[in-house]
């Protein structure tokens, strides 16, 4: 027989404590911590990811060579070459060093837009959902306009317009992310506002903004947080892709995506070297995905 999840009847008998209610309480952090204690895969992912982040941030200490130092005689050295564990690129620069230094940029352009999107989109969605009426319509219509463009093309368009540079890639991606976060937050706020505790808070004379807002934010926060977490991986891939197209970082500065582009001409001569820069991109995305699943299961079990 197809194995089916525990029937509703059986849950009466398992003696398990009932499902936690979706509204968030201070126990959330504790719940996340407990989840990681039992989920070995997620914990391993977290450890590995932290390692990667630390290595990249500490680039001046961890990088074996100067990422910009070229060695004309040693181009496209294969991995395992003396002094170059991962080999060298087309200009003779150490690949490992470039990956480490490049990681700073790649991770930054992946995480920063998500943070900005979370804050800006979250505030917009909260205001729209709470205020209602004209304000809400206005804000959500503007959000809808940005939804008219496919994410990739919008990001490319903005990045092109603003010009090259990491900062502009971050802005472009943030602009693409804000509408989604705003929608998620607005929808969560609207359904939270319709619940009675808001009415109760208002009725008890709580001053308009402070108490209600804090209560509201606490209960609404899980939706945009879970969403933001779930897109960090794809955004890292996306950001590296924009760099791949040459929109952000400019050569010779290293970054995983742009390295992939520079090396793709050497695909025939040095297949391994040309493929290597993609590994950290995929790895980071995968690790964030695994961690994000675990976090999301805790924040909103109904989505599991």
């Amino acid at each position, binding site marked *: *027989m197809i*194995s*089916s999840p*525990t029937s509703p009847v*059986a849950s009466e*008998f*398992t*003696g398990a404590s009932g499902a936690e209610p979706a509204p968030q309480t201070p126990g959330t952090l504790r719940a996340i911590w407990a989840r990681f204690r039992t989920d070995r895969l997620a914990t391993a992912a977290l450890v590995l990811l932290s390692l990667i982040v630390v290595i990249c941030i500490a680039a001046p200490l961890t990088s074996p060579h100067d990422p910009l130092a070229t060695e004309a005689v040693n181009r496209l050295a294969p991995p395992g070459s003396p002094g170059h564990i991962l080999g060298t690129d087309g200009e003779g620069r150490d690949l490992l060093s470039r990956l480490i230094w490049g990681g700073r940029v790649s991770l930054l352009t992946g995480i920063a837009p998500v943070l900005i999107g979370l804050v800006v989109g979250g505030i917009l969605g909260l205001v729209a959902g709470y205020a209602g009426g004209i304000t809400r319509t206005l804000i959500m219509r503007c959000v809808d306009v940005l939804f008219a463009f496919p994410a990739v093309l919008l990001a490319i368009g903005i990045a092109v317009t603003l010009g090259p540079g990491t900062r502009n890639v971050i802005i472009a991606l943030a602009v693409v992310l804000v509408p989604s976060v705003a929608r998620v937050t607005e929808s969560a706020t609207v359904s939270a506002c319709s619940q009675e505790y808001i009415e109760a808070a208002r009725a008890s004379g709580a001053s308009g903004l402070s108490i209600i807002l804090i209560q509201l934010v606490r209960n609404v926060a899980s939706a945009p947080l879970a969403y933001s977490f779930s897109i960090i991986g794809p955004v890292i891939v996306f950001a590296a892709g924009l760099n791949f197209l040459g929109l952000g970082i400019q050569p010779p500065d290293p970054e995983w995506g742009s390295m992939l582009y520079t090396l793709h001409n050497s695909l025939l001569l040095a297949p391994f070297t040309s493929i290597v820069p993609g590994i950290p991109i995929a790895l980071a995305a995968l690790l964030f995905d695994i961690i994000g699943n675990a976090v999301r299961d805790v924040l909103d079990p109904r989505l599991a």
Partner: protein
Amino acid sequence: MSSPNGGAALLSVRGLHTQVRNQRRTTTVVDRATFDIGRREVLALIGESGSGKTMTALSILRLVSPPISIAGGEVWYQGQNLVRLPEDAMRSLRGRQIAMIFQNPRDRFDPLQTIGDQLVEVLLHHRVARGRREAEDRAVDLLAEVQLLDGGRVMHLYPNEVSGGMLQRAMIALAIAPAPDLLIADEPTSALDVTIQSEILDLLKDLEAARSMSILFITHDISVARQVADTVAVMYAGQLVEYGAAAEVFANPRHPYTQALLASVPSPDAEILHPIPGQPPALSNPPPGCRFAPRCPSAAQHGRALEPPPVVTVDRVSVRCWLYDPGGA
């Protein structure tokens, strides 16, 4: 224990033992249930929600899946032990020889298909009819048999376009279509209006007679059980505490729980309600002795320490209670 009504049994449940297993503990939800159902007999399985009666029914049909499993016991039907039957043999038996209807009919139909389509599907699957045309004709006949007289129209309706009572009749039609020997009815009237309830009960009684069908009628409502039962089995906290002919048990309840149940039924002239004080025990952590002892007005020290075995009294009623133990209480 043989059937209180005598005669060869159609279905013989012996020590059926069903458990739920999770990481931390194993909970017994059906504790060595033993009873028979004879031909053309209506056995009412009475108990509160959580007493294990639905689990018993699902176990008979092997509709339980991990973490719930049948840990022991036998279910004899036509010389075969259903607990050990291979799955495909069990599947051909389900619906065809033993059928089941459920409490909330609206949740038990595919919302995207018409009632007629779902009837035809069952008729074709069990080869009651060959070909769609014949199946549709038979379906209309079946609907008439359950007193849905404009069957032709009902066939083309979707479940959400039809009332609860009509849907329950349609579900009964689906169940009796392959002419099963035994119909398991799990709280078939609990979700319906009182007026519809008695209509459905009458329908079931008529069908039982007309089709020589046995019924395992599961309910929490003693007054409903009174209207249909030939035999009664009372379940409490996963155990069968009293089992005997309906006339005997209702006239002369032996187990304190049965007595309390009967006493708690409100009657029109009663001024005071007599609910049973307390709550049934959590099955994950049952009391060491008799499970009803914490709420029993006649409980003795003995009862709190040791579980009473079932005892058959003179009138062929089986009771699980120290008060009737021939060795003294």
